[in-house]
Structures are given as structure tokens and as C-alpha cells.
């Protein structure tokens, strides 16, 4: 729950626009969402292994490659360095240590 201490705008409603038709923007955003879904699916397929090998660390997945580090910024910076201009859509997460059964 989040309440906003802003009585004048308490019931503000934001806009939902019409679907984009600019082909360049549509292609760019579709590519982003496609990459995001692919990277999330790769993470799901490898989640057990990642949790076993990298508890307590930050990870990113981009095009089938796993990036691991001790803070989220350094991991994101490595993804950006490897994919200049095209780095969006990585799957990013902290790997929470799981209790030993």
C-alpha cells in the first residue's frame, strides 16, 4: 500500500494512449520486450543452478550469458559494455540465499 500525501491530486488519473504506429519506435520496443522475455526464460530454465552457485550475489542475463557480481551497478555496467547501444532487456536479480533443507 502506498498513500500519497497530496490531497489535491489524490484521485489523479493518468493517460493510456493509443498503440504506437511509428515503425521505428514499434520495432525498437518490440525488440526490447522480446529480449526481456527471452532473458527471463533463460533465467527460469537455469534458476536452480544459479541459486546453487551464486547465492547472495547479483546477476544479469543477456542473450544466454550470465553476469555475476557483488553489486547491481557493476553487473549492469558489464552488460552495457558488452552490448553498447543495445543493452536493454537484460534479466536482473539478486540471488537470495536459500535456507539449506
Amino acid at each position, binding site marked *: 500500500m*502506498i498513500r*500519497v500525501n*497530496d490531497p489535491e491530486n489524490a484521485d489523479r488519473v493518468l493517460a493510456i*494512449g493509443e*498503440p*504506437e504506429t511509428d515503425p521505428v519506435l*514499434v520495432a525498437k520496443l518490440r525488440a*526490447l*520486450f522480446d529480449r526481456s522475455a527471452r532473458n*527471463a526464460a533463460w533465467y527460469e530454465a537455469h534458476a536452480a543452478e544459479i541459486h546453487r552457485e551464486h547465492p547472495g550475489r547479483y546477476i544479469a542475463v543477456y542473450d544466454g550469458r550470465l553476469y555475476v557480481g557483488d553489486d547491481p551497478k557493476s553487473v549492469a555496467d558489464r552488460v552495457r559494455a558488452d552490448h553498447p547501444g543495445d543493452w536493454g532487456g537484460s534479466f536482473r536479480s539478486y540471488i537470495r540465499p536459500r535456507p539449506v533443507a
Partner: protein
Amino acid sequence: MRFNGKWLECQDGVIRPVVDGGLLDETGGTESFPFLIDTGADRTLLSYEAVAHLGAEVETADGPVLEGVGGSTPSVALRATFWLLNTDGAPTPLGGPLLGRPYPVGDNLCILGRDLLTHFAVIVDRPGGVVCLLHGRHRYVIQET
């Protein structure tokens, strides 16, 4: 329009309903961020990471104070657009005057609040594994099996 979300395991191990949103930075670079579907949130809120991606200057917390279960926190006010991908494959813009977090907090999720969710029929069905937002001509049916 229909927008599909997903159940995401967050950093605290809790699985929550999210929908991916895409943002453009000032150079046209793209990034995706999970938006928590939070019907209890008055306003949509960008995470610190998303605010940083937009290149917004965050020097002062000039937005309204946000009050939650854990106490109060400042916000920054900014104007931005983000896109959700509908099931026809068309990016659809949402936005306007938004709030953002001035520093990293917890899971660093963006929050899709009541100011935008009011446009949608919201389905968050954990047993069925369904998260989706319906708008316009799309409707849902409740049935007994």
C-alpha cells in the same frame, strides 16, 4: 487491449504479480523494468533505477511524501512515458506526471498504481498462474467448473 504480466520471484523470495514496462532514455536507449501491480498504491511510482535510466536529475525530493506500511518516504516528481506491450504486439504508451524514488529501496520495483490501473480490469490469479490487464474491448468471464 490485453497486456500479459507474470508472477515474479522478488529479492525477498516472495512471488508477486508484475508486468514489464519499457522506457526510453534521453538518447533513445531502451530498458525494461518490472512494474508491480499494486491496487493499494494511490500512484504509479518509478524505481530509482528507472529514474536513473531516464536521466532525470534527482537533486531534491520535490514530489509528495509517500506513506506506506513501513513509514514515510520522499519522492521526486517527473514527467515520463513508458510502454506496455499488448498481446497484438503493439507497444502502448502510459504516463504523464509520475513519481519516482530518489534513492534505491528494497526490491527496486516500479509500481503500477491506481492512477493507471483504473483503466483496466486487473486479473492476478496465482492458482491459475495468470496476470493480465484488460482494457477497451477485452472482457473477462467468471465461471464455475
